[in-house]
């Protein structure tokens, strides 16, 4: 089985000419299928940029990026959109659509897969919400949910289409320590059950024990792995 993520000699810069600023230097990183990897490092070390490159949200400038068997460094915009449909994203802020119920927000993710018919789509969204413990909140709008509940909806949204890779950016940042840990525990457990790999950027030391591997980054370089 190929690795979920395989990055080699990745370099990335922002800006042009004199304003050009390199943020990633020869980054190499592999994430095995089914493993949870936490990426740590001070602000501005380039970890979020790495995450957006792996997630197909930016175009690769130089180096190799293989995600779920797709060669992202050679992919055009349309292919990037297609690859993204197989990745689950969890953001620092939940970014749920405020005019959709919890269930509809989760359904939005499944709707990207035309082979899922509307009836199945609804059923799977409901099941997923039950799994994250929101079986009694399915028809609530985000405004009526607590921060932890919203983040659980966004985890349900990221996982419902059974992606092979989940990218999470500081998923606990907006939560208190208890619900933060609960949310990441849930994410880790479900990812393991589905056999999905997780690459998570975090500052949160309390959740490091949930990772299979921890990767430290500094000044655009991978420092060490533990």
């Amino acid at each position: 089985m190929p690795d979920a993520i395989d990055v080699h000699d990745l370099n990335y810069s922002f800006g042009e000419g004199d304003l050009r600023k390199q943020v990633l230097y020869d980054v190499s990183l592999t994430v095995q299928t089914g493993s949870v990897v936490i990426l740590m490092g001070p602000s501005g070390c380039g970890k979020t940029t790495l995450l957006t490159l792996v997630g197909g949200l930016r175009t690769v400038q130089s180096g190799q990026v293989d995600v779920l068997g797709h060669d992202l460094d050679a992919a055009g915009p349309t292919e990037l959109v297609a690859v993204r449909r197989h990745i689950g994203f969890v953001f620092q802020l939940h970014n749920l659509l405020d005019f959709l119920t919890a269930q509809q927000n989760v359904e939005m993710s499944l709707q990207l897969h035309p082979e899922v018919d509307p009836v199945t789509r609804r059923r799977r969204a409901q099941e997923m919400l039950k799994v994250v413990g929101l079986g009694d909140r399915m028809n609530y709008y985000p405004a009526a949910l607590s921060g932890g509940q919203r983040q659980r909806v966004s985890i349900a949204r990221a996982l419902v289409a059974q992606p092979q890779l989940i990218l999470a950016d500081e998923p606990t940042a907006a939560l208190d320590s208890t619900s933060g840990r609960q949310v990441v525990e849930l994410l880790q457990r479900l990812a393991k059950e589905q056999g999905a790999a997780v690459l998570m950027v975090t500052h949160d030391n309390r959740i490091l024990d949930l990772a299979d591997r921890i990767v430290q980054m500094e000044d655009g370089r991978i420092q060490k792995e533990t």
Partner: protein
Amino acid sequence: MFFRDIPLAWLQLTHSKAKFFAAVTGVVVAVLLMWMQLGFLDALYRSATSVTNHLTGDLVLISPHTKEFARPESFPRRLLGRALGHPDVVAVHPFYEATGKWQNPWTGEKRPILVFGMPPDEPLFDAQGLAEGWSKTNVADAGLFDVVCRPSLGNVAKHFHAGETVTAEINNRRVTIVGTVRIGVGFQADGNFVTTDANFLRLFPDRQASAIDVGVIELRPGADRLAVQMALRQAYGRELKVQTPEELIAAELKFLQDNAPIGFVFTMGVIVGCFIGFAIVYQVLFTDISSHLPQYATLKAMGYSDGYLVKTVLQAALILAFCGYIPGTILAAGLYEIGKRATMLPMDLSLHRGAQVFGLSLAMCFLSGLVAVRRLRSADPAEIF
């Protein structure tokens, strides 16, 4: 696809009822404005031809100096004889027409009224009520009153149909209403009075029987109208114009368009309506996009294409167009009824104008959607991490 998928546009628009109501109200106002402006414009054009629309005959002779049917230039009656020389012409009828002063019998107010004089054996109008009342006009100072008149003339119809004898003065001469017809008024007068040529000449003492205003030609059944028209044009040269009733109506409209700025005025009104609707819809869509940029960016990150988001915004625009059109049209129907009573202008909700207003509202909303869509470019999925 629309029912299969989650109706994002609809859910977004209707999530806040108050906001949705405000947006729809904006479109309703725009739709209403369009209906009213187009309705008045159309009614004015139609009313301008209400008299010519009711004229019978296959061909019409008028003076080349006549620009408007309601303000004709007279010509010598003897010229009619020339048309009779054509083998296909069965008869040529003289038609008198002039604007008189009607004195409202109840208020004493004097208002312009168009008076038509026609041969007693041949009423040259095809109008409702004429067949019943015409024979009664063959007494001195009797005539038929057009009930589609402005209220300024007095409620003749009500009193007449209540069985009262209604008399009034035209050019200071007492006339008796012996029946009613339905013709319609234009700009030049507030009402119409239809009578015999003899009565006409009594009301306008300075007019001569030998000077008529219109000649109405009747052709043998099966005659080639255009061929006769060509022949008569040759025969009359520059002395008289030979027109079909359709040409007469078209010329009437053209005169109005060229000489009255109403087309411009009302078209401006329609444009203002469109602009109001455009601005409101744009404002609503723009605000909605702006306040949802991170969420839209998230949808893009998840794998939704730009096309999906563009489609959603345009759908929202079209939903607004549709939701505004229906109540706007219902309101317009009510206002048309009020307008019709106040002005006696022919205002009707026609399918044609309905389609026109619908098309304009769609275009207006679609355009605001297209402009608002540009805001989507700021939704960059790489920026939300």
